[in-house]
């Protein structure tokens, strides 16, 4: 139990610290690298929550695809990486206050609620069950998601391509 708690605290510090660096770093490229670190920390949380498939997907999709895509976009617009450029807008103080206020409200509310908790273990073959559910009762949403991805893919290509 002690190991579990220690790992949770380390992951929390890494994830939240990297996330803070993402939103405060002056250099957008550093932000993107910290974003990768934060995604890896979230994958660690998924491992702690005994969802290994989701952890693998998190690494593949977020670290492997989305973060790399963001780095590509930063490099394609690289003039904007300049150090002297102001990255914060005029309302950042109010944004920070608003975010802190929301965090306070969320924590106070969350702690007051007595969430029902089940002391059951995750079944041994949870990944098998996940696959069978995706191909069984959830096959229609699964196909809808694949159509969504196809539409997004084609749309992204058309939006980003050079005009002739």
């Amino acid at each position, binding site marked *: 139990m002690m190991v579990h708690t220690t790992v949770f605290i380390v992951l929390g510090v890494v994830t939240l610290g990297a996330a803070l660096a993402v939103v405060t770093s002056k250099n957008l490229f550093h932000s993107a690298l910290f974003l990768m670190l934060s995604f890896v920390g979230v994958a660690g949380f998924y491992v702690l929550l005994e969802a290994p498939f989701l952890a693998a997907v998190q690494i593949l999709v977020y670290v492997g*695809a989305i973060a790399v895509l963001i780095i590509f976009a930063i490099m*394609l617009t690289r003039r904007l990486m300049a150090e002297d450029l102001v990255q914060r807008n005029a309302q950042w103080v109010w944004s920070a206050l608003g975010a802190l206020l929301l965090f306070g409200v969320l924590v106070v509310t969350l702690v007051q609620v007595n969430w029902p908790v089940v002391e059951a273990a995750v079944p041994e073959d949870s990944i098998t069950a996940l696959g069978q559910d995706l191909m069984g009762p959830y096959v229609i949403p699964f196909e809808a998601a694949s159509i969504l991805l196809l539409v997004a893919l084609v749309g992204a290509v058309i939006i980003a391509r050079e005009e002739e």
Partner: protein
Amino acid sequence: MAVTLYWYLIVAAALFCIGLYGVLSRRNAIGILMGVELMLNAVNINLLAFWRYQTPSVMTGQIFAIFAFTVAAAEAAVGLALVIAIYRNRDTVIIEDINQLKE
């Protein structure tokens, strides 16, 4: 001290609020997208934490998280394509300068 559901919820709330601050305070469209990604990750932590602590025997929670992943991937692809298209046309990705509709 064992890790409980509350710990995950609080971490996810913190991650969400950090992402919200990023979305509200960045001038660069790519920076805003990074904030959105952080918020989506916070939501996924919540989904999986509730799954693990409330219904670990059925896979619905994980499947919900998988669909959130899918939508996040589509959002990132289209969002970054839009940023690149705007950069081509206007030579900027600073949100305050993209205000043709206002003029």
